[in-house]
């Protein structure tokens, strides 16, 4: 699979390792293939190595081991200015002593482009981000969102094949951030460029990306499309990190063969309070091994028909959120079990302190590695 993928891969990390001090590996054995025109996000908590990966791709850091390839060619020894990779920085890095127009013209100038051609391209790039009237302003005279657009236009004006973005929306307020997410996504769709995006904001990653690489501890924990990442997390870290998650610790007591409808085997797990439940065996060992069962709050239904995963739950707290009601329950001895009850017509009204029945499908519960 790796061979067939790498033929199509435009950007490729091949067994890349990185250490700053010779003692600790910041990036451990990174393998990642990105196809041409793809929007891939590196998502992870701070210190997980995602920005280091971006800096290695841009050429500002050298890989301690392994190859980074662009279009099939190793770029390890190519200096940053010859890589032809556009980059948007978290701080925007707009040159303060130049006007917006001069900022955009800079990459064209250093490529020895003629004045007329430069002006034409700068004008087009500014129009693209709806900033056509701002060419003669200084960056300091612009708002955060405007600076963001200029930084984006500057990274795109010399028509790079790959654009890297290092938390470009981190400094904006929520509303502007969401707006810019769509704009960046639309630019990506219309220009057909390859984007490698770094963020620690999961909703940003899920909204914009074709694929998301979840980083932790210097490794990619899971690389998948946003829907897969949310619905089919492959390990406890991803399940925890992406979205809200209920976890129940237990021990595998049995594994059955599974059937054609489900993806894999169904594990019977004995939980800490002695009860058992059934869950899809995604990443757990054989009988006797510890596991962590992960269930999304919206996949749990209240007082449905009894099934293999029916259990009693005591209502501890209710939070009204308009479209749904967030209920904190005690389930199998876990006080932090959250269920989202949709505010649909005829839904059951829970009361704090009452005991109710809840249930979930075995395939919605995933038996993962213990943390």
């Amino acid at each position: 699979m790796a061979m067939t993928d790498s033929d199509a891969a435009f950007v490729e990390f091949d067994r890349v390792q990185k250490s700053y001090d010779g003692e600790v590996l910041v990036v451990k054995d990174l393998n990642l293939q990105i196809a041409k025109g793809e929007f891939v996000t590196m998502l992870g908590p701070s210190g997980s190595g995602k920005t280091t990966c971006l800096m290695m791709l841009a050429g500002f850091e050298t890989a301690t081991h392994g190859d980074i390839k662009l279009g099939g060619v190793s770029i390890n020894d190519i200096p940053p200015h010859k890589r032809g990779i556009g980059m948007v920085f978290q701080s925007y890095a707009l040159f303060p002593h130049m006007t917006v127009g001069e900022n955009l013209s800079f990459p064209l100038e250093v490529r020895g482009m003629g004045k007329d051609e430069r002006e034409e391209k700068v004008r087009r790039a500014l129009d693209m981000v709806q900033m056509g009237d701002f060419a003669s302003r200084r960056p300091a005279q612009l708002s955060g969102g405007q600076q963001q657009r200029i930084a984006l236009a500057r990274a795109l004006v010399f028509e790079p094949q790959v654009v890297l973005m290092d938390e470009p929306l981190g400094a904006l307020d929520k509303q502007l951030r969401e707006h810019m997410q769509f704009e960046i996504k639309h630019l990506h769709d219309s220009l057909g460029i390859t984007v490698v995006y770094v963020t620690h904001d999961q909703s940003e990653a899920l909204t914009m990306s074709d694929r998301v690489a979840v980083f932790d501890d210097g490794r990619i924990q899971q690389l998948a499309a946003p829907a897969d990442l949310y619905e089919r997390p492959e390990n406890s870290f991803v399940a925890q990190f992406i979205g809200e998650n209920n976890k129940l610790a237990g021990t595998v007591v049995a594994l059955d063969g599974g059937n054609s409808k489900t993806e894999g085997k169904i594990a019977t797990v004995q939980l800490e309070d002695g009860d058992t439940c059934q869950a899809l065996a995604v990443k757990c060992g054989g009988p006797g091994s510890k596991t962590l069962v992960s269930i999304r709050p919206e996949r749990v239904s209240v007082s449905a028909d009894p099934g293999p995963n029916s259990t009693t739950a005591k209502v501890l707290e209710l939070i009204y959120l308009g479209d749904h009601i967030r209920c904190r329950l005690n389930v199998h001895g876990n006080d932090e079990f959250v269920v989202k009850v949709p505010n649909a017509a005829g839904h059951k009204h829970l009361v704090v302190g009452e005991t109710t029945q809840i249930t979930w499908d075995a395939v919605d519960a995933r038996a993962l590695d213990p943390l």
Partner: protein
Amino acid sequence: MADATTNPTNTGLTTADGKPLKAALAHAQARSRRRAFLLVLPLLLFIVITFIVPIGQMLKRSVYNDGFTVQKNLTTGEKTPIMVNLANWFDENPAGTEPDETAFVALVEDLKTLKETRAAGQAGTRINYELPGSRSLFTQGARKAKKLQPPFKEALIELNPKWGDPKLWQVMRSASSNLTGTFFLAAMDRTRNADGDIMSVDEDHQIYLKLFGRTFMLSVLITVLTLILAYPIAHLLATLPLRYSNLLMIFVLLPFWTSLLVRTTSWMILLQSQGVLNDAMVAMGLIGNDNRIQMMYNKIGTVVAMTHILLPFMVLPLYSVMRPINPSYVRAARSLGATSWTAFRRIYFPQTVPGIAAGALLVFILAVGYYITPALVGGSDGTLISNLIAFHMQKSLNWSMAAALASLLLGGILILYWLYDRLVGIDNLKLG
């Protein structure tokens, strides 16, 4: 109040009880303003007494000298006018008039007064500033004035032929008025001929312009050298991790904590012809023992020692400008296709210009007026204008000359400062 707030176009805003808003504000702030003023008052007085008044005195002294008009009794403080008759004759006859018998009569009368008031030395010294050898002329004239018989012109010229020198008469004419520009002229190697026209002094006697030129050139050289040396250090300081940069900063500041004299003498030990550097080169066989390089008591010594001493004044402004420059600017430039040299030239360097300008201005102004180091290591070749000012203050006691030189120096620096403001803008000055 409602009126005042709803009508912002009304310039005379008032408070709730009808007082003008501006007056109320001034009243409310008066107390804190008074306290602030009292706090700075000691410094203000100190500066006025020790700085502004002496500078005013100096400026006055450069154009005002009463050595030929007033005798001041040092014990009583009483002031007696001298050379009155001659001054009257100068008033009645225009410049360039051949001195006639009446002029010599007046001169002899004044010489007698000089004898009585014992002011011959003082008056002679004043003329001596401009016409060397005149002091003895006056003391001798005053001594013998009583015995002279008319016609006085012939009698005086017989006593000493210098009395007939038209140049002497031109100098006495200019000295007979307290306000004079001759010191400024002399400071620019200019003088007046017998007709009162301004002309250059003989080539052999031109020292001040040459020294101003040397001071200027050496200061420029020192400024450029400190810039070249300080730029990489400041960059390192600004970019290294804190624990290393702190150590480096201590090294930069170490010279500040060492006595100026110790630093200068260390350079003397290192650079003199029997010094460490020469010994080392002889030992390594680079130069012969009998042609050791002369690096001390000339320009090289002055430049090396002053560059070292003034280096921190360049490093600190540069550092303060470089520290806040985000490294992502250069990275952005590199990712946009600029080579590291282009990124430096187009992106990093322009952002450090205010620091360069501040450091250069500071070092240059300090270098132009530097005294101790050139006095110790400069020899005859490496002295600067400040050493000549000190010479006139301490040795020749021609304070007016010293004041004129110092005023020219001050004026030059003010012009530079004005130029800097026009070119870079004083608001961009960052000194740390």
